[in-house]
């Protein structure tokens, strides 16, 4: 079932926490997890979300002007 998830990788923990807070307000099933080994990031945590929520997550990032590195499939 793993390929049902994606993660947002951030530059800073503050941005990750902010996105978590914004996504929670919309009731999305998200989780902060350590960055998977094959993806490198200095910020040790990333935000995991369900594949189908990608448009919603992208909108949250855009509307909130959140700086992030990238979104990856895991």
């Amino acid at each position, binding site marked *: 079932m793993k390929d049902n998830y994606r993660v947002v990788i951030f*530059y*800073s*923990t*503050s*941005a*990750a*926490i*902010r996105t*978590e*807070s914004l996504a929670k307000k919309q009731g999305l099933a998200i989780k*902060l997890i*350590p*960055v998977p080994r094959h993806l490198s990031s*200095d*910020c*040790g*945590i990333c935000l995991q979300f369900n594949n189908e929520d990608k448009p919603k997550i992208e909108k949250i990032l855009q509307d*909130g*002007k959140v*700086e992030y590195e990238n979104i990856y499939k895991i």
Partner: protein
Amino acid sequence: MIYLDNAATSYPKPKEVGQAMMYFLEKIGATPGRSSHRLSIESARILYQARESLAELFNVDDPLRIIFTLNVTEALNLALKGLLRPGDQVITSSMEHNSVMRPLCELEKRGVEVMVVPCSSQGVLDPVDLERAIKKNTKLIVLNHGSNVIGSLLPITVVGEIAKRHHILFLVDTAQTAGCYPLDIKKDNIDLLAFTGHKALYGPPGTGGLVIGERVDTKKLIPLKVGGTGSHSEFEEQPDFLPDIYESGTPNIVGLNGLKEGVRFVLAEGVDKIHQHEKNLIIRLIEGLKEIPEVTLYGGDYRKEQVAVVSFNLKDKWPSEVGMRLDEEYDIMCRVGLHCSPATHKTIGTFPRGTVRFSMSWFNTLEEVDQAIIAIRDIAKGA
């Protein structure tokens, strides 16, 4: 005991403030934004919630544009020293605290032009005088929103409009107003809002910060300090994004969890309600003091808007003597002297003698004010 020194530090605090600090020490403990274990993540969430509550209070869209400092002094130093360069002009008022005057004095020696616009002896600033002082090289206007000596307010909304029109940044020192007087970074046209946690936001000492408005180019605001941020660790250069650019080293997360609860308390009670309560206290106090012939009161029409700070003197008595008697004989805590604001005392005509200052908070009552009036009447009569 009656505590009337809230303009220095508010006391008591809502009980949730101390509880939150203890909770952090006992249950969380970890550094925010560094490690990826759950305690560190929880710590980062707390830090974010503190920003979020302040963002709600000041009407800031992005909580990450609020950066934390030790107090308002550090926030003002960051804004002033970070923005001003030799050859720039900065405009301020004659009602400023030394937290603005001293950094400006230092910057003046480095080639920054400092223009101090005089205010009336009642602490009133005419925005026309301020606009007239604007020149081609004016970079910044900095004003103290509420006077820590007489409680008067400077017209920040009007000045903010002037700053915007002239493409100048506007920095506001909200030490005496954040939490007890309505503040809105958008409506008041504020570019940089410096606040402290330990006064009307009911947080502990060691907390404060700076709101960095959208008009501020962070490339032109140099950090006061740089170091570890938990981000961009592969580079030896400071990260360029908010809030990390201005927040190096482990923050006072214990204090900030307390501040978060203090701000939530203010939001739950409501700033308007707090302001109204304090206004009732100030009117009662001033009307009581006015009936004592030996009392000289400073400031303007107290029925207009102001914060809960009053300065006065007693005929033939030094402020220090009055303060000592209030403490020792009447169990009343207040502050006497110059209140770190020589400029203000020169403006209101009380330099170098100073004044006796009473300052109230949400937790003071009309009964306490009445007792303070009786004490002053006794001391004035030489009892």
